[in-house]
């Protein structure tokens, strides 16, 4: 059984149009999983960045996986937040993976010429984290 620690409690905005859950998966390979759902605009992007940065060190140097499978809309602020997290993880010597990235987000990333900077996973539960 995969041991999971929620850090912090899952967040849902007033409208219910955005959710954020951060989980530390203790079983090997140990990983920090950030699950985002709904519509991501500027305020949501800020929350994603802040909450993720807060807990980033808690899993040591384990990989950070951001699961975007439930994201229905993402603005450039959201993309910016992903990039900021990427920069932060690189600075800390950690690896960031984007999991279950929709065609919409992929297209946005490729249109902005940023796709090459990210590593992608088909499944956030993937055992071999070699998606780079």
């Amino acid at each position, binding site marked *: 059984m995969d041991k999971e620690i929620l850090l912090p409690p899952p967040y849902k905005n007033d409208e219910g149009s955005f959710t954020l859950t951060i989980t530390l998966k203790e079983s090997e390979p140990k990983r920090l999983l950030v699950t985002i759902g709904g519509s991501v605009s500027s305020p949501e992007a800020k929350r994603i960045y802040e909450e993720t940065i807060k807990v980033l060190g808690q899993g040591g140097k384990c990989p950070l996986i951001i699961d975007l499978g439930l994201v*229905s*809309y993402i603005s*450039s602020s959201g*993309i910016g937040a992903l990039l900021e997290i990427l920069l932060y993880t*690189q600075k800390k010597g950690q690896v960031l993976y984007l999991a279950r990235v929709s065609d*919409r987000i992929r297209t946005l990333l490729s*249109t*902005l010429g*940023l796709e090459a*900077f990210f590593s992608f996973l088909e499944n956030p539960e993937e055992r071999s984290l070699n998606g780079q």
Partner: protein
Amino acid sequence: MASKQENWKRVDAFQILVPAIFEFLLILFILFISLFRDHVLYPWMIPVFCFASLLLFLMVWKIRLFEKEKEFILTLQNFINTEEEQKVFIDILSYLYSFFKAKRIRLCSVGIRDKVLSLSVFPFEEEILSAQIWNQEWEPLFETARSHRKIFLKKRKGMEKGYTILIPMQYKGKNIGSLDISWPRAPIFKGFRSLYSDVVKSLSPLLYSNFVNQQLRISREDYREAYRYTEEKLMSLVAQMNDMIVFVGEGKINYINKAGLNFLGYSEAQELLGVEPELLYFFPDDRQELLRQLKHNGQVKNFELLLKKKNGEKVFGLLSAVGVFDKGELKEIVGITKDITERMENESKIMKMNLELSRINRKMKKTSLLMIQQEKLAAMGQLAAGIAHEINTPLGYIKSNMNTLLKYCSSRAKLIQALVDPSVSPERLLEKYDYQYQEEEIPVLFEETGEGIERISKIINSLLSFSRREQVPSGGSFDLNKCIEESLTIAWNELKYIAEVKKDLTDLPKIPGDKGEIGQVILNILINAGQAIKSQNRKNPGLIRISTKPGKKYVHCRICDDGPGIPKEIRMKIFDAFFTTKPKGAGTGLGLSISYDIVEKKHEGHLRVTSEEGKGACFKILLPLERSSGIVKKKPKDDGGSS
């Protein structure tokens, strides 16, 4: 109301007709008597006849007036109960106007800021609808009218000479306005005052209502006109806007401005009118999110869209839209979309640059570590001969001692064999094999050898410590004094013939950092001090003072020499990379530069130099007792550790 007017009519008819008929009949009787009794026309009869004729004429005229009055009253009664108030009201006023042969009929009311608002009702001209604000307070005017017992005749002065009757209008006990009628001359019809008064009194509510209607009509027309004007202006503005403006109704595009056509690469609005807007979206699902936000908030601000141009090209738009709702249902969307393609491209360029910078930064960090290591190795290389000599000296006497001890062992083995023979005196044998001397010498040799091994071990440990790398933030802490001792051990061979080293090391708390790197800094400074003293070719050895002291936030270390000092003109350059005053090949010019980097950037400390030319140089190293996760602290003004 009607019955009152009927009474009034009967009284007035009696007053007019009865005396007139009686008078006329009396004259006719006199004439009849005169003509038929005397058969003569007396001269006095002529004026009497004329008078009778005039009376008759007046009677006929009064009857005619009365008929008109009757007609007016009837019309008035009809008017009160009719639905087409406005039309009838105008008719009545028109009738009043012609009936009284008035110059003007004017309706007054309380207007803006309690000023009198007058509306000329008759004559029908352009001014009929032109409301005019008199610069006159309403209440005093109304009070004047009231004090004259509702009706007063006023001879107007000034430009408009004539007579005016001002009838105050009250409705539900409230002063609401007045209706006045003006003549160029005094009206001759006697009954008009009471007639007019009653007419106005009866009409007050209606007149007021009509007046208000007139005002409303004016307001409505003004509003319509203003609306038409605003609409024209707005549409002109919308058409000329630089941003795309789209009106969507029932899921179809109803309007798109020229900027929108240009933005999406279309030439004619017809190409897009009636088209579903999501067909312009690169991700049609974005429409659902847009509608969700619109339904929830009634409006959408800064909603980013990836749009498709006519040629398939992708463009970014920033949409702000408002929804028009009917009974809670979204009927229409008015949206303005700004072309942010260039902005997004620029932002992505900045993002890419940041990522690239981050990559370069990481690479530079690796390079920096490599450089430090290489510089360390270079320093070790420079010191290699001296270190070898330092190791060789104890190694020499260890070797010599070992040979001696080996010899002693062999001698003792022979002694033991000889002692087996009982014929030989043991005393003689002990003397022969120098036993007593060896007995005294062996512990000394062992002690010397031990010291030599200890010395070698210390040098090797110092070298190992010097070359070992530790991770600064997450790494452990170290004792600066011990680090200084190790650096001195390595540098000792370079210094021992050149300078005397005096240490004043106070007990220090352990500090976080990389001992190897700080050792490298101290070694660099010591070697530089030794080389500077050596360059003076002095007879007497120089002096190097090393002192340490704890402060509030930092530990302080000073390394001072009495060498030639650093010339003022190069003092600012000594920490620059590749700057050296040493002969070519003697130094890389990186020693102090790397030292500065290690102390200032990696350990968040401070490295300072003071020097007086001809008297020596003094390097001061401040290392923090606690790390602040990579934030470089400001220069400490007084840390309590100056020495």
